[in-house]
């Protein structure tokens, strides 16, 4: 272990712990963003207004709600940095940008997991889908892998927006097309987990592999690119 990699990891741990502690204390996500995701799920039901259709499209709706919420979560996670120019302070302090990226990504993965637990529970209640034990294992794996991809891209483009000062509106335009493969793969895998649209459990695992490739690729790419993107 070199000195650099040690400091990268310790920076990542510090940033992730700090972000999660801020959320734990402020409760902004739980009090504001989570209800938003919940109301989106209810609005989907109003818009589609048919139990059969709802059951069939439930996996897609869950992941759409996750993606919409992720935009707010990513903006929030960088708003706390740009509010007091904390990102500049971090840069001036000379800490490893890769560490900041990894820390932000880990915190995002944890927050997104919380969201997915609630959204899946809501879909079981509101859309009447079924979840077997095997399906639950697949769903947990898929959620974790999908979050890695969303978090990596979110941290990367969120950081870019934050560094450019007040250009956070760019985030949806950059993030949503980039995470389209995550939406497709996670939705198909969740169809298998829920057993809807005739999908079997075994069909879900190859999609999980695609999510793993996506997460690994952009986790690695993001670690290299974050410093350049957030440079002043």
């Amino acid at each position, binding site marked *: 272990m070199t000195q650099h990699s040690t400091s990268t990891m310790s920076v990542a741990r510090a940033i992730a712990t700090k972000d999660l502690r801020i959320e734990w204390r402020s409760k902004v996500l739980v009090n504001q963003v989570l209800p938003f995701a919940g109301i989106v799920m209810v609005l989907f039901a109003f818009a589609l207004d048919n139990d059969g259709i709802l059951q069939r499209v439930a996996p897609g709706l869950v992941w759409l709600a996750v993606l919409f919420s992720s935009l707010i979560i990513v903006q929030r996670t960088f708003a706390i940095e740009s509010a007091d120019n904390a990102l500049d302070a971090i840069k001036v302090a000379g800490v490893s940008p890769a560490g900041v990226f990894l820390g932000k990504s880990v915190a995002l993965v944890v927050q997104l997991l919380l969201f997915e637990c609630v959204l899946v529970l809501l879909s079981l209640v509101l859309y009447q889908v079924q979840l077997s034990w095997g399906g639950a294992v697949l769903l947990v794996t898929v959620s974790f892998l999908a979050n890695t991809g969303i978090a990596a891209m979110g941290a*990367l483009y969120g950081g*870019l927006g934050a560094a*450019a000062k007040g*250009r956070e509106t*760019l985030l949806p*335009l*950059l993030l949503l*097309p*980039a995470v*389209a*493969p995550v939406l*497709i*793969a996670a939705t*198909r895998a969740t169809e298998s987990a829920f057993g809807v649209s005739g999908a079997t459990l075994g*069909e879900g695992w190859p*999609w999980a592999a*695609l999510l793993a*490739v*996506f997460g690994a*690729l*952009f986790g690695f*790419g993001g670690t290299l*690119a974050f410093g*350049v*993107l957030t*440079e*002043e």
Partner: protein
Amino acid sequence: MNSIHPFPSPVDTPTGTRASRGLGIVVFLGMVFLTLLGLFFTDEDVVQGSTVRLMYIHVPTAWVAYLAFIVTAVTSAMYMWGKQHSLTFDRIAGASAEVGVIFMGLCLVTGSLWGRITWGTYWQWDPRLTTTAFLFVTYVGYLAVRDLGGSHHQRAKRSGVVALLAVLEIPLVHFSVVLWRSLHQEASVLQPNGDVTMDGLMLFSLLFGVAVFTLLFSWMVLHRQRVLALADAIEDGGLETALQERRNEAN
């Protein structure tokens, strides 16, 4: 005059050179000939009728769009990894992406029109179409990143990273869409190429279109990157002028 406005003006720094003007004339003549080929000299297709004439524009625009994004990626990489970090590469990348977005838009529009007549619908969730649409949106985002402000090198680095990330993204988008469609829908699209033999003049017109559009692309990128260089020079000059004014005030 120059002491007050030391900016490069279109009069004293034109973007055209003798070579680029020559290229422009060749492109213009080529376009005229392509129009004659597409509309008058070539016959109707046995299956598609006159709709096939759209192909003489559609295929070249698709080719130029993909070529433009390859050029953007390659020149971005040349900026990032080049020893000089030459901003010329960055400006070529930007100019190429701008031209690419225009041509990809044209490609989507002409493809839609052709699809409406041939398939009966403007849009099919075909992997190639879907990937093209994603590529379009991704590079609109790339252009937005170029507009974020900051120094020229900051712009070059940021947009360079985004261009290289797009190179990773696009195959993944394509692959996931291919998997998605293959599981859910059999290919129901009429495939007019494949084993259909193409008339010699039609094939020539298509290839001629690709060649002329490639020259058009070169001509547009050449001029656009020169305009971008002038814009950068004005920005730099603007700063120097402001500094000079302050110095004059101090004196």
